[in-house]
């Protein structure tokens, strides 16, 4: 009986002691917080590291239109369409990068044969209200002087292959599935 009650009071004393030990730590931090760890984000922005992979950018004027980036992309985030211009050079008519789908793996940058053509910027704040705004368009557009047969061919295809087209199939799919479910 006495041993049990002894243990009981010892435990109580321990509990009270440990409360004050914990409070001591809290009070210690309250008096002198030491190193400040919280980053005041919108005001103070931390510089990303050198190899940080942010938003993808293309220097479209030096792009050769080889489509290596579009072919290696594991998520098909790059839509690239080229036509031959009068100098038999490939012209990137459409170069859309879907930032919503991009996984920032960097395979396209490695595959790009031209230096500093396709590169990551240290930009990471591009949240948006709509998905269409997340697609960045870099394409040079149609050839300035449409020739007789060459320009006729790409022009009807163009609206279908342009930027928002990537979203449309998804929507179409869902509509179809909804209709099917309804039926």
């Amino acid at each position, binding site marked *: 009986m006495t041993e049990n009650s002894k243990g009981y009071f010892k435990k109580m004393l321990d509990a009270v002691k440990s409360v004050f030990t914990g409070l001591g730590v809290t009070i210690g931090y309250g008096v002198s917080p030491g190193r400040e*760890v*919280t*980053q*005041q*984000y*919108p005001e103070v*922005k*931390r510089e*990303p590291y050198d190899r940080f992979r942010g938003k993808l950018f293309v220097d479209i004027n030096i792009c050769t239109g080889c489509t290596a980036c579009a072919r290696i992309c*594991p*998520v*098909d985030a790059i839509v690239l369409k080229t036509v031959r211009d009068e100098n038999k050079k490939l012209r990137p008519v459409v170069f859309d990068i*879907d*930032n*919503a*789908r*991009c*996984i*920032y*793996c960097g395979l396209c940058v490695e595959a790009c044969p031209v230096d500093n053509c396709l590169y990551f910027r240290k930009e*990471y*704040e*591009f*949240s*948006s*209200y*709509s*998905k*269409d705004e*997340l697609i960045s368009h870099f394409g040079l557009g149609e050839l300035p002087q449409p020739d007789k047969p060459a320009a006729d061919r790409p022009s009807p295809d163009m609206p279908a292959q342009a930027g928002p087209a990537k*979203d449309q199939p*998804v*929507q179409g*799919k*869902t509509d179809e599935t909804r209709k099917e479910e309804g039926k």
Partner: protein
Amino acid sequence: MGLEEKLGDSIFTTKLDALINWSRKNSLWPMPFGTACCAIEFMATVGTRFDLARFGAEAMRFSPRQSDLLIVSGTISNKMAPVLKKIYDQMAEPKWVISMGSCATSGGIFDSYPTLQGIDTIIPVDVYVTGCPPRPEALIDAIMLLQDLIKQESVRRPRKAMVIGQ
């Protein structure tokens, strides 16, 4: 709320709008719907270094009935989609949705048969965050964008019915 509709667009209701929006935007209670690695970045956002409490959004509620901001952070499979839809439906108005990361926004790398290609096919999304996973700063940026959105809302008009899938 009923009363305001009779009062019209008077100075009383506009000031009431400002007050209600101010209190709503600074007291977002997030419901974390973390299914993948984006949830780890979300934890970092709430943690000490980035401290979501600075924006009044630190009160995590794991019940949809007590929260007004659904943060979908992670891949949503087709089997998870009805659960997400149910949780969204259980949330009380006003409610907002942040789609965090590539997977939630567009399916991301999982362009495959068991994965939902973007949560906006089943629920309306207010802000899309890009990244795989996004930085905590990017999520804070999205929450600030959402606060700007909340500021423009009015108690008189019901929230704009969002078309699913834009």
